[in-house]
């Protein structure tokens, strides 16, 4: 969701081209970088560094390449080095913040982003990332302020509005969440996630008819997409489960599981719907899959315990009950 902005990369490329001389290798690196071939660019930049020319910004660019390649651990020391060398460069701090965020070092990430904003307060992408970090740290008021600032700086960015909607939804400010998702749909009418989450929010607001319409629409829209998203099926499946339409719920959740086999929520909810349908063997399989995906989640084990007890298998029930309790106790309060 948060890729380095094209502008940043372009600026770096321009700078790289102008400062590393006219070597063919440098030019090749620029070409690779501009073509988003970060793997090749990284290889060339690594060679430049190994050849004893690690001057100037090459470590920074290599760090950015690593970030884009998902080699975040390797990116971090390079970006830290860059922040020492270029402490007045807002982009450096942003990339360091992004790297720290991906490494789940949220305090360090927030510090880096604040530093970036102190140098250049006009960066919507920095506010957006800062907002996400505040959400993770449960600093919801700060997150809200950051997203709103990002929206002010980039009013057509539907992703920021979407994130704000998700924030409101998660903290129970459902009216505001609905407003935000409505706005997303003005900016991006085919956003199936906004449709689905707006439906879920309407459900929470007691607007059943609107919820049904939106959730059904999100699933239909999704079917026209070249790369269908699992979220509409998950949200619709949960909604149907709450409405006690369990067969339909299970079908939607099965579809979500096909589209995103590694999504924990999907397997938990599928297991729950199947359990309520008394399709206990199928429910067990779905819940075992969920337990594999996240052994520390209490829900699959709790539901598995219920199934075992109802099937008269006390030993199995006790085992999963203990695991569920253990997982719950291990969760941070």
């Amino acid at each position, binding site marked *: 969701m948060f890729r380095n902005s094209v502008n940043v990369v372009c600026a770096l490329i321009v700078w790289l081209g102008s400062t590393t001389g006219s070597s063919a290798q440098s030019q090749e690196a620029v070409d690779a970088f501009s073509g988003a071939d970060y793997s090749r660019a990284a290889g060339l930049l690594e060679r430049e560094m190994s050849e004893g020319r690690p001057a100037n910004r090459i470590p920074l660019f290599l760090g950015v390449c690593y970030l884009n390649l998902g080699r975040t651990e390797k990116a971090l020391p390079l970006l830290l080095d860059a922040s020492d060398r270029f402490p007045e460069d807002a982009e450096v701090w942003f990339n360091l913040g992004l790297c720290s965020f991906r490494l789940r070092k949220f305090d360090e990430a927030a510090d880096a982003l604040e530093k970036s904003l102190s140098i250049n307060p006009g960066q919507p992408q920095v506010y957006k990332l800062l907002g996400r970090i505040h959400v993770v740290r449960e600093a919801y008021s700060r997150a809200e302020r950051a997203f709103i600032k990002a929206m002010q700086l980039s009013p057509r960015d539907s992703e920021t509005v979407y994130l704000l909607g998700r924030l409101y939804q998660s903290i*129970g400010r459902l009216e505001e969440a609905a407003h935000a998702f409505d706005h997303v749909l003005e900016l991006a009418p085919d956003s199936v996630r906004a449709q689905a989450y707006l439906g879920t929010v309407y459900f929470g607001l007691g607007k059943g008819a609107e919820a049904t319409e939106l959730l059904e629409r999100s699933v239909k829209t999704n079917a026209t997409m070249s790369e269908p998203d699992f979220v509409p099926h998950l949200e619709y499946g949960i909604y149907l489960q709450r409405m006690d339409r369990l067969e339909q719920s299970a079908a939607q959740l099965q579809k979500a599981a096909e589209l995103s086999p590694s999504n924990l929520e999907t397997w938990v909810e599928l297991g729950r719907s199947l359990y309520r349908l008394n399709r206990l063997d199928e429910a067990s399989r779905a819940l075992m899959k969920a337990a594999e995906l996240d052994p520390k989640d209490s829900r699959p084990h709790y539901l598995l315990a219920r199934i075992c007890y109802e099937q008269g298998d006390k030993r199995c029930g006790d085992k999963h009950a203990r695991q569920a309790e253990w997982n719950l106790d291990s969760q941070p309060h």
Partner: protein
Amino acid sequence: MRDRRNGTWIVSRIRLPSLFCAWALAYLKVGRIRRCAIPSLISILLIEAGVCETRIRFQEIAADSGIDFVVDNSETDRKFQIEPMIAGVALFDFNNDGLLDIFFCNGADIWTLEKTEEKYFNRLYVNLGDLKFADVTAEAGVRGQGYSMGTAAGDYDNDGWTDLYVTGVNRNILYRNLGNGRFEDVTIRAGVTASVEGLGKLWSVGAGWFDFDNDGDLDLFVVNYCVWSRDKDSRCGADKPGYRTYCHPKMYDPLPNLLYRNEGDGTFIDISEESGIGSHLGKGMGLALADFDSDGYLDAFVSNDAWRNFLFRNLGTGRFEEIGMEAGVAYTDSARPVSGMGADAGDYDGDTLPDIFMTALSNETFPLFKNLGDGLFRDDRFQSGIGVDTLPWGGWSLGMVDLDNDGDLDLFTAGGHVQTNEELYTNRPSQQTNRVFENLGNGRLEDVTLQCEGLTAIGLHRGAAFGDLNNDGLLDVVVTRLNAPAEVLRNSTEAAGNYLLLQLEGTRSSRSGLGSEVRVTLDSGRELVRLARSAVGYGGSSDSRVHVGLGNSALRSVRIVWPGGNTQELEGVRANTLVKVKESYSD
């Protein structure tokens, strides 16, 4: 409207739409078919025309009845944790005149935790008849001490006069009813102070009387919340005027509950440890006492706040085993604790087994655990419809009660958020209405609050107790709300079904008969099971008489199963009567 004294129809007092509605409902209620369960042309027309959707009606009559009680919690901007928790209200007949009287718990000065002014006194109102009440607190000697929370009424000494236990932050009080309009504080002599070595006085929120060992006297279960002291209370919410909030329960350490065994000589022994009750720490709120596994011994369900619920299975040996996890009531199937508030036990789905209903806060839904038998329960929130309908609401005390006498248990919840300024943080209102969920008779419940007259008042509702204040066969409700007048909701449901009201008197069992099961078979063959209980909801004590709504049916048989299993068939019982039953047995 049916005149319950002679069974004749009185038409003149009935509005025509109501008569039409009543006729239509009676027509639609053939067998167990309900208008909401199976849409029919008539029901659709009725609903479309706005004639009626539920028959349940209330009239708020507190001011007219002479009830002027206001809970005063000594509220501060600092938001101490004890402030939002006061709920106690008891409906019991303290003077044996056949009419339910009302007792209310109250707060105290927050800085001294003493009832330094009259506004903090607990209150007892005597029922004068015709739904008129008079304050007899002073004469009765029950103004109380300390910061009170909840109450439990029960005849612990089997002398025929109902006694009263009051729980609180810094004082628990056992009042012995002397039978002359006065009560005597016997707390210390009886040994029920709720003080524990090493922990001091525990913060008790509720209690319940039950004869757990079937020895013929009532024992006492005390529900404790959490460790609290004013000087160490955390500060939560934003640090600006008006934004402070009550802290999440996770900020406080849990406490054990207490079990006092009645020794039969006016004293009690704390057997919390040896019984196993005291070895489980929680943040107790609601208490529901019933024989959930049908083994002849009363079990105890405790709803906990942001903590797993407990189901203490009575092993019949003086020990309890906590089986909430195995039974499936520790959590909903979301496998996460909710802000458990009140709790009640009753057969909501007509399978004769006691189910469990509890309240929680907004965005959590109110759990409903269906008893499957064999010691297992299933989270039935969404199957019943209660999950969807309760998502926006906060609930405190509650009751599983048949409000329209149609033979199934409806749900009443006292509504309000824990916070007084929730609007600053979410879209949920702090002050809410009470809510009624009508049982449709097909396993589904429907929120009919908006259709029920008399439920429009908002507030920080907390306590609710249920009982027939005017002996008209309809269950009335008394509700408290913080820093606002209590509500007396007279049940004015029109075209209600037949009923039976049983006042039990144990002889071998405890005098009050608490814990007995009343099994009624209707002429249709349908069996209804209702429990003699007073521990209902959160911090409250309800009418211990057993109310059974019968619908339009007549009675085929009535059987009492007294605690311990003594079974008694009643002969010649007619519908729409109050029947006093004295326990008889044959050895």
